[in-house]
């Protein structure tokens, strides 16, 4: 279910009303979990099975890590839940139903989608084997048991991610390498859609197990609460990636809706909606025009494309986050900020502290630091940085341009670290960098670097990456407006949206965030502001639905 649809608005209003009426935490959690499953299942009910499996595995693993052994009765109940989930989510022909095609009652129970039998076998197999394996782990000594549970959680989650997202990519490349070495191998590729948000919720559930292992979180005995932590609908499909410490304390007591939170949350969500619909979606067609076939376009068009995409991806992703945070704030639950004016960064290190904060901190805490962080030699530090950023690039998608992008970011971070050392050793240089001119220069260089990075990120093939980078770095001197593609689509609207973003975002950075300004308005002015926003959204809402960019990750 997309945020910017009437069905989401209806779901939100219903859930808010129902949460307000329900008095106990358990009833609220049950309702919220059901709503979250409806929200996610709106795309494809079958993929709810993955969320259920991920939830159960990490629930059991976290308890097992801490030595809390579930009794057989509980284990059987959980297996029953898996079986029920398999029957409901997999054994009904949801693809046909959700496609709107008519199906006779009998046919609904005989789905024919690819991999149906295998999926059911795996789920039922897990339901049968899981309780026994869980009990067997408790025969190991404490250290082995803890590691076994942790390994199971990580392997299961990364295994799901690898299968659905990376299998075809790796197999295809291995086949290519084999072919280059003279080994003929035509592997069978799998034909399966990428479950929406899988990269986000698998990381989220892994952090639950890992933090339990590290003793940073006490695992919850309530499967319901853990399930809600995993599937909480405002942040389920595109983050922010929540740590258990950031969300689970909020489940201790029933939620009480407060007028101030509801209004403030609504304001924040509205600002996110405006970013997404009026700016990102207005820019999207021109970005597509430039990057779907960049060959032949002049440097000016490529540079403009980079700038437009930078604004598009920021407004799209931060808009989504604002809506997620705003919706959650309505319930009285604060989700941490995920973007903190990254485009005003004056270094790449700073950029990664401000951009997609939940992912960068996840990578820092669960990959970079366990690898050794900066505690070893300089070479080891650089290696750890590169490995983290390459993995981070690959997380975004199974394609070489993401690997190149991750590598590029890793190289920039390493260079930045090295440069910092040089600057610290030179007082004159340090003074200059701290001056106003130096700050502007550092900002300009950083902006150039992240713009180049976005080019790599957005390009759809190796050839396109090469062509775009060449045109971006080596200006070709072509200045004719006609070559910017002004004859296609609505380029002027894209440019107006770009200009509006620059002005509004800068005002927001140097003053207050726009949702905070709305929070400060008296009621009458707020109503007028919403009426005007309604008018603006009506005229600016694109006719063609544009999904959030990060849904593809």
């Amino acid at each position, binding site marked *: 279910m997309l945020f910017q649809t009437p069905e989401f*608005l209806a779901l939100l*209003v219903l859930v*808010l009303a129902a949460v307000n009426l329900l008095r106990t935490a358990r009833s609220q959690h049950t309702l919220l979990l059901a709503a979250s499953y409806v929200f996610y299942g709106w795309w494809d009910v079958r993929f709810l099975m993955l969320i259920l499996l991920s939830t159960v595995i990490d629930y059991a693993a976290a308890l097992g890590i801490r030595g809390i052994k579930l009794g057989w009765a509980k284990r059987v109940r959980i297996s029953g839940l898996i079986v029920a989930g398999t029957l409901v989510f997999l054994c009904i022909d949801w693809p046909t139903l959700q496609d709107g095609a008519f199906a006779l009652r009998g046919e609904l129970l005989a789905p024919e989608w690819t991999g149906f039998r295998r999926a059911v076998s795996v789920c039922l197999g897990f339901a049968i084997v899981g309780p026994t394996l869980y009990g067997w782990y408790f025969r190991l000594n404490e250290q082995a048991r803890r590691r076994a549970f942790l390994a199971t959680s990580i392997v299961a989650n990364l295994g799901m991610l690898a299968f659905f997202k990376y299998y075809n990519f790796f197999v295809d490349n291995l086949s290519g390498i084999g072919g280059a070495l003279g080994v003929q191998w035509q592997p069978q590729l799998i034909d399966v859609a990428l479950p929406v948000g899988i990269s986000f919720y698998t990381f989220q559930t892994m952090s639950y197990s890992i933090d339990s292992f590290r003793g940073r979180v006490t695992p919850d005995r309530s499967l319901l609460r853990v399930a809600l932590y995993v599937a909480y609908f405002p942040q389920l499909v595109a983050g922010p990636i929540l740590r258990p410490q950031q969300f689970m304390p909020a489940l201790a007591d029933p939620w009480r809706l407060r*007028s101030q939170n*509801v*209004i403030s949350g*609504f304001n924040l969500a*509205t600002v996110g909606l405006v970013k997404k619909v009026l700016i990102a979606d*207005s820019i999207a067609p021109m970005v597509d025009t430039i990057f779907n*076939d960049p*060959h*032949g376009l002049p440097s000016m068009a490529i540079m403009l494309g980079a700038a437009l995409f930078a604004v598009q991806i920021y407004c799209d992703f931060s808009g989504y986050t604002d809506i997620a945070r705003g919706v959650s704030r*309505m319930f009285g639950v604060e989700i941490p900020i995920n973007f903190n004016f990254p485009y005003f960064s004056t270094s790449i290190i700073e950029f990664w502290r401000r951009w997609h904060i939940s992912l960068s901190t996840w990578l820092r805490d669960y990959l970079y630091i366990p690898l050794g962080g900066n505690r070893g030699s300089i070479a080891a530090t650089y290696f750890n940085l590169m490995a983290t950023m390459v993995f981070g690039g690959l997380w975004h998608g199974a394609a070489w341009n993401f690997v190149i992008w991750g590598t590029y970011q890793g190289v920039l971070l390493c260079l930045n670290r090295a440069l910092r050392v040089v600057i610290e050793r030179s007082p004159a240089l340090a003074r200059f960098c701290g001056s106003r001119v130096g700050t502007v220069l550092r900002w300009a260089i950083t902006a150039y670097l992240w713009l180049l990075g976005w080019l790599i990120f957005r390009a759809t093939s190796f050839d396109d990456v090469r062509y775009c980078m060449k045109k971006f770095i080596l200006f070709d001197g072509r200045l004719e*407006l*006609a*070559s910017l593609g*002004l*004859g296609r689509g*609505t*380029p*002027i*609207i894209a440019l*107006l949206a770009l200009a509006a973003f620059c002005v509004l975002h800068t005002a927001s950075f140097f003053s207050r965030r726009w949702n905070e300004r709305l929070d400060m308005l008296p009621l009458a002015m*707020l*109503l*007028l502001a*919403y*009426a*005007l*926003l*309604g*008018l*603006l*959204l*009506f*005229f*600016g*809402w*694109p*006719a*063609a639905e544009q999904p959030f960019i990060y849904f593809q990750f």
Partner: protein
Amino acid sequence: MALLLIVAAFAGAAVGAIALRAWIVPTIGLGGVQRIIELGRILDDGWDDEHMGIVLGNSVSVEGYDASIIEVAAPPGWRAMNMAINGCDVMELHVLLPRVLEAQPSAIILTLRAVDLGLPPDLPVDKAYAYALGNFLDAHRKPIDRRALGMNRDSYNALHAHHAKAMLHFRTAVARWVNDQVRGWIRHDMREPDSAEIIAPYNLLASIRGQRLVRHLNTIAEMQDERLAAGDGARLIERLVEQIADAGVIPILVAAPQHPRLRDRDPERDEHCRTFLRVLAAQHNGEFIDATEALDEDGFADAIHPNESGRRILSMLVGRHLPPRQRGD
């Protein structure tokens, strides 16, 4: 309280919807698809009892014909109108044609390229809503066969949309209008004719040469190969011509002029196209005009569209091929 905010936002949106219906669309139109609405009005108004030749087709016909020149070259008594629409390929012609036939022209001039024998591009949703607003489906005696046409479901639903829903689709009309106005100030190589222009609705004012032309030629060649490999659209063209002939209208099939640098790419394919059109025209008592070599490089604005010189040559060619009026017509 949140409900109050939602109500306020919807109130603003409602004001916008009313303004859109009552003032904005009547004033500024629907942008690129306004032409569909205007052609509907012109067809409703009809014409006096004359021999009327209607040019239908896509941008090749938009750029390629000047109805006033066709009239000059044609035998006495003929009038002509250019009702071509940019992007109006074979699938869209199936939607448009019945309304045109209702107005009882004497001849319909269709200009087709080899690529039109491949899978036709889908009808854009924007245009589908415009056809809905213009009530074009009222002229269809049978429901549109979506699968036979290969039309996607969104376009099909848009064609059948209620007026209110169709109007709502064009809520971005203001943004598009601003876009088109500013683009018009910046670009001097394109003309924005009136949506109701039925004599010479061409857009291109300049011809591209050099590397830009080479890129366009390559793009056209690739697109041609893709569409021809994707499927067979010949049957759809046959159905169009059958409908025209069944309505007692003369089908004039023109093999579109081909850029000299594209002529040697696939001569077999081009000959197949010419033969197909020739036979089809003969089967339905129509006329076939082979214009594939009618223009040299100087007659083209780019890889496929005639320029002013090419337009004159093509219009004269078609005009000369219109049959003389019989006594008693």
